[in-house]
Structures are given as C-alpha cells and as structure tokens.
C-alpha cells in the first residue's frame, strides 16, 4: 500500500467516523427533542403547500395564455425559492422561539441554565433540522410540478406541457396522501383522494379565473 493509499484510507475512516458520530448525536437529539415527528408533520404540510402553490402558478399561466415555458419556469422557480425561504425562515424563528421558551421553563423547574446542556443543544439542532425540512419540502413539491416545463422540448404543444404538469401535480398529491395515510395507518386510497381533491379544486377555481 502506498502512502497516498494509506492517507486516503485514513481520510475515509475519519469521514466514516464523523458520519457515525453525527448520526449517533442526531439520534440522541431526536430522543430528547422529538424531532422526527415534528419534521414528518412539517414535511407533509409543506410539501402539500408547495404542490398547491405551483398548481396556482401553472394554472394562472395557462389561463392567462402564457405560451413560453421559460416564463413558467422562471416564475415557478422564483416562487419555489420564495416558499423555501419562507418555510425555512418562518419555521426556524417559530421553532427556536417555542423551544427557547420550553427550555427556560424547564430550567426554572430544575433551577439550572440548560442552554449549554445536551437538552439545549438538542433544542437548537431541532430548530435547524425542522427548518431545513420546512424549507425543502415545499421546494421539492413545487419543483415536481414544474418538471414537465423543464422537459418542454419533448412536447409539440405547450398545452400538453400544462396538462402533464397538472397530471404530475395530482399524482404527487395522491402519493403524498398515501404517505399520510400510511403515517395514520388508515385507508391509503381514501387519504390519497383527500389530498387529490384539494388539487382538483385548485385547478377548477384557477381555470375559471380569467384576467379579462
């Protein structure tokens, strides 16, 4: 084994060690701060928001006669980024405010300052983790609806791009519903249709609107 090989081996070992440490710490913080449940709730709620927002953008572009897919992509991307920032920022501020309050209350009961404790670190980690999920979930949901516009070169007519986008949005909503049904351990198809219905209503109302 050459020196370079040994060095790269030791780098990879230390990287694996860091990853394992991080996962262990994250699990520990999850046990303390109940992060997974809150993140799962945020994901469902915000992905739903992202898909419906993008349905609004595309149906609005469709009814107002936008023919250029780049216009929809630009509008869609800037909207996706805005809801990502809104989700992450808002979640971080509210989550950290709530957790600071809980930490202070707990500190008053135990008569200690918990800021530097494992609970304090878990609280800060939770606020960051939840805000990342809150930001990424609507962004991913929104981007999924935009995918057909990125592939618009394969379509003959922009109308089909819009239809495919709407179809993708409805499928994404249905899958999200199935996932929520799985979380609730309820009928998956019923949950799927519940989320799908919101998309159908948005499309119907959106298509009835006309700038003129």
């Amino acid at each position, binding site marked *: 084994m050459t020196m370079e090989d040994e060095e790269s081996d030791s780098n990879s070992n230390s990287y694996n060690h860091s990853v394992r440490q991080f996962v262990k710490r994250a699990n*520990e913080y999850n*046990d*303390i*701060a109940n992060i997974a449940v809150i993140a799962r709730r945020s994901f469902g709620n915000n992905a739903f928001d992202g898909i419906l927002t993008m349905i609004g953008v595309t149906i609005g572009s469709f009814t107002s006669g936008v023919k250029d897919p780049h216009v929809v992509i630009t509008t869609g991307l800037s909207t996706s980024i805005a809801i990502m920032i809104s989700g992450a920022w808002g979640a971080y501020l509210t989550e950290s405010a709530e957790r600071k309050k809980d930490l202070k*209350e*707990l500190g008053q*009961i*135990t*008569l*200690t300052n*918990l800021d*530097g*404790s*494992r*609970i304090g670190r878990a609280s800060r980690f939770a606020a960051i983790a939840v805000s990342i999920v809150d930001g990424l979930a609507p962004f991913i949901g929104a981007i999924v609806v935009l995918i057909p516009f990125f592939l618009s070169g394969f379509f003959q007519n922009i109308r089909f791009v819009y239809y495919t986008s709407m179809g993708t949005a409805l499928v994404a909503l249905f899958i999200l519903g199935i996932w929520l049904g799985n979380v609730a351990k309820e009928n998956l198809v019923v949950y799927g249709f519940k989320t799908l219905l919101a998309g159908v209503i948005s499309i119907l109302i959106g298509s009835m609107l006309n700038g003129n």
Partner: protein
Amino acid sequence: MIGKIRRLVLDVLKPMEPNIIEMAKGLSLEEGVVAVNISIAEIDHKVENAKITIEGDNINYERVKAIINDMGGSIHSIDEVVAGKMIIDDAATLQD
C-alpha cells in the same frame, strides 16, 4: 496521597429526557466508575427526582456533576459519600 471516592449517593432533579437509561450509560462510561444505579423517587410535570448511586475505585465528583448537568439535571444534595481504601456502610449507633 489523595483520598479516593468509592461511593456517591446523589439526589438529582432531572428532566424526563434524556431518560435514566441514557444518564446511567453516560455515568458508567466515566473513568473510575464501576457501577451506577439510578432509581426514580418521584415524578412531576416534565421532571423527575432521581436517586443516583455510583460506585467505583476513584470517582471524580466534578466529572459526575458535569455529566449530570449536561443532561439537564441538577444535584440537590449529596446524600452519602464513601471514600478510602474500601467501601463501608454507616455504622449503627444506639440512636438508630
């Protein structure tokens, strides 16, 4: 020669999480600690009162305190301490 602490019994008020399993694991990993026993004396809203018994061949109280504090606990009192070459229990007296 510095005296070695061999047993500590602490009255600790701690949050529910990290639970006593985590706390016992954390304390037992400490150098000089051989065994840890934690029992819950009382449960209140969000917190619990724990009796922590630690035995070892050289317990570092400052380290133990740091671990307990790191897990959000606060030591209310040191209820028993045994130091020296061996562990002895408190001697019975006529008043007992």
